[in-house]
């Protein structure tokens, strides 16, 4: 929905939290795999917030935060520290969260987002590190339950917070930002990016204003968006809600609203008596962070080629289209797979079609790239045999589907040749043979022949189909079509 449709310009900023893929928690050695094992089993005096316990920083979490910040083009602070954010909640054992306030690990980055032909550089204010809270479950709904159950397995898991500038102007842009951000986080291995499971979370700040205005409207916080789709729908709804309110002469109230997926609306959340004052102060139990440039340079050097850069390279050097490049770089594993196929000598365009076609079909059933039984070298061999005419396109596709669905790993071109051999696959491309079969087809499919000769290209289908049937699918479709055309031309 554009500004024209709603009559306003939307101003959106996103605050994203992502759980880091560390083995252990942020401040103690408990396992960070909080979903495994029973509730409260991954706990110790530190993450339980028992009296006398003290935090000790997980070095890897700091490094992953720097890595993320660099991937998002941020400046890394030379001096950083942790602060206590004080508030009471049953899932917050210490009564404060160790977070970062005024000296975050990084700041001033950006992420480029494309919606259709429109490009937006979304500023990233900061990326900082903090600890996650535990989980509360309620018997029934939160507002009617008699009691809540506390599980502290997740308490203390390292969390990065990525705050964007309010640079987004539509729900679509926001969704695209989330998708790109998630892609990068997964790509560089800092998070598994699972919104539905909660390892990636998103809150938004939304306001509207008259198009062309530079003043900011009252912002509303929107929470509880648990998927990309929810981000889009919730923000779209909220923009419309605010636009309608302004239209009706109402004021926008600064508040927090939760997205209700079932009802398709954002609902105001209870305002607390005496808004919480977090009383941030520097964490006395942790020394500050001196992030020396050598460390930052080392982490920067270890950064892989990021998705956007890789996509550009594929487009530029291999000639695939921008859209294809985008799809091929959905994950680093897929991009690696694709390039490995190209490395076997197969033309990039052909490889792209196969990877985005047949291979993706298998991936969409839930198979991971790493679990594909047909390895790139083998696929390269398969495509080569199609290109050199040994087998035809259909045969190649069927063979791929069969091998990809099996349990045996097929890793080499030789293995493909063996498979072709053992199945007796061959393409009938002997011209004389085909000419004879075309004669039969014309005789059998007279109407189709008349239509084809009359200029209806699509009528070739029935004729080629006849030949295919006769050859049990082994004829070369293009060769048959060629013969038909020649004959049609000849009269």
């Amino acid at each position, binding site marked *: 929905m554009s500004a024209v449709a709603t009559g306003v310009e939307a101003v959106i900023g996103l605050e994203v939290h992502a759980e880091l893929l560390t083995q252990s928690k942020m401040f103690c050695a408990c396992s960070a795999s909080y979903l495994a094992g029973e509730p*409260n089993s991954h706990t110790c005096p530190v993450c339980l917030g028992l009296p006398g316990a003290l935090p000790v920083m997980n*070095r*890897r979490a700091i490094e992953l935060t720097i890595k993320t910040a660099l991937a998002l083009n941020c400046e890394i602070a030379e001096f950083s*520290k942790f602060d206590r954010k004080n508030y009471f909640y*049953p899932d917050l054992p210490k009564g404060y969260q160790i977070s970062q306030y005024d000296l975050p690990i990084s700041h001033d980055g950006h992420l480029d987002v494309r919606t259709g032909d429109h490009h937006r550089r979304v500023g990233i204010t900061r990326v900082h590190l903090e600890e996650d809270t535990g989980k509360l479950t309620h018997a029934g709904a939160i507002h009617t339950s008699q*009691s809540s159950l506390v*599980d*502290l397995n997740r308490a203390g898991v390292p969390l990065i917070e990525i705050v964007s500038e309010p640079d987004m102007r539509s729900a679509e842009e926001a969704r695209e930002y989330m998708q790109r951000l998630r892609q990068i986080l997964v790509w560089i291995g800092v998070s598994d990016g699972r919104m539905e499971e909660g390892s990636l979370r998103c809150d938004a700040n939304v306001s509207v204003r008259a198009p062309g205005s530079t003043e900011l409207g009252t912002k509303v916080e929107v929470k509880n968006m648990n998927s990309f789709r929810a981000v889009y729908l919730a923000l779209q709804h909220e923009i419309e809600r605010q636009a309608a309110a302004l239209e009706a002469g109402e004021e926008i109230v600064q508040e927090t609203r939760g997205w209700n997926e079932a009802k398709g609306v954002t609902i105001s959340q209870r305002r607390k008596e*005496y808004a919480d004052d977090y009383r941030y102060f520097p964490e006395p139990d942790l020394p500050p962070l*001196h992030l020396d440039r050598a460390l930052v340079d080392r982490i920067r050097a270890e950064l892989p080629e990021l998705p956007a850069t890789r996509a550009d390279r594929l487009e530029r050097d291999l000639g695939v289209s921008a859209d294809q490049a985008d799809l091929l770089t959905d994950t680093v594993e897929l991009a690696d797979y694709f390039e490995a196929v190209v490395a076997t000598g197969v033309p990039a365009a052909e490889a792209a079609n196969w990877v985005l076609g047949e291979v993706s079909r298998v991936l969409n059933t839930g198979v991971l790239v790493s679990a594909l039984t047909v390895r790139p070298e083998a696929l390269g061999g398969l495509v080569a045999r199609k290109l050199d005419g040994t087998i035809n396109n259909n045969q190649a596709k069927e063979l791929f589907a069969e091998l990809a669905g099996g349990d045996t790993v097929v890793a080499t071109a030789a293995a493909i040749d063996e498979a072709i051999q053992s199945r007796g696959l061959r393409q009938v491309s002997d011209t004389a043979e085909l000419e004879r079969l075309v004669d039969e087809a014309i005789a059998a499919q007279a109407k189709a022949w008349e239509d084809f000769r009359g200029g209806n290209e699509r009528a070739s289908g029935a004729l080629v189909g006849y030949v295919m049937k006769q050859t049990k699918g082994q004829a070369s479709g293009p060769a048959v079509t060629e013969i038909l055309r020649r004959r049609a031309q000849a009269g």
Partner: protein
Amino acid sequence: MKLTAEEVRKVAHLARLGLPDEDLEALSTELTRILDYVDKVGELDTEAIPPTAQVGDVVEAFREDEVGASIGTDAAIANAPASERPYIRVAAMQE
């Protein structure tokens, strides 16, 4: 500078201390007295003086990312006044 009973109530709420209303006035006097005393630090000229957050000599203190022993669910909930194994139980969130 006096801390009013209303401010005392606000601070008590922030600190989740459910102090009875009848105590607020007395507490307001007591706390004001203490705050009046500590206001003394305002006499010191601290222009260009950096704050001391810590007096230790530690420059770096990290843990490697290795999983160590947890104390287990039973030990974790052993001190909880209310529990429903494996969870700790707490009263309802809202009024």
